[in-house]
């Protein structure tokens, strides 16, 4: 039973345009939502997060949106840069049992074309 769906395995965007990455979830107990970026041969790097009491959080070029009613999480990158080319994972933490555990999406490979 997939609690998290990151439906787009890949995305290509022109440099300077907006990149939008999406995740859908089913578990109503998720209360903290994160995005990680991963370059080849490196570990995932924390990018940005949002708690369930908010619907938007910004950090420079990165904005995370949370739509709790639709159970939808998105990451906007504006403007996109070639250095943003990486695999992006959404991750979710539950407020209930297993709250030490993060549940990850399968990842979306973003390619920013110069």
């Amino acid at each position: 039973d997939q609690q998290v769906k990151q439906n787009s395995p890949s995305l290509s965007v022109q440099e300077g345009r907006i990149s939008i990455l999406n995740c859908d979830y089913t578990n109503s107990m998720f209360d903290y939502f994160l995005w990680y970026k991963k370059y080849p041969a490196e570990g995932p790097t924390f990018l940005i997060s949002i708690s369930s009491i908010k619907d938007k959080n910004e950090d420079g070029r990165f904005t995370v949106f949370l739509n709790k009613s639709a159970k939808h999480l998105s990451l906007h990158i504006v403007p996109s840069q070639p250095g943003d080319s990486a695999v992006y994972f959404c991750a979710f933490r539950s407020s209930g049992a297993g709250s030490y555990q993060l549940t990850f999406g399968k990842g979306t490979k973003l390619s920013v074309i110069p």
Partner: protein
Amino acid sequence: DAGITQSPRHKVTETGTPVTLRCHQTENHRYMYWYRQDPGHGLRLIHYSYGVKDTDKGEVSDGYSVSRSKTEDFLLTLESATSSQTSVYFCAISGDWGQPQHFGDGTRLSIL
């Protein structure tokens, strides 16, 4: 960058042999985690630790054991490696359960 070192970075071994992966941190963080990453599965939690000698199972713990005798070290052991355990293994740490986890650079393990 968080001070996390995984060793070895690469290992090739044979089915049935024991394997131990090491995660060492210099951040004095309480929480440590082992994940595996496989194509089509994202990252999945194997085991985690919430203090010295305090560990618990994650989503995919079968075939793995862990130990944490010191704050800075978290060991993952495959008692008898199988080909299905071929994967990239990541260690992560966090200072508090509410804080984002920070990851090491991974160990690529191939079991032939």
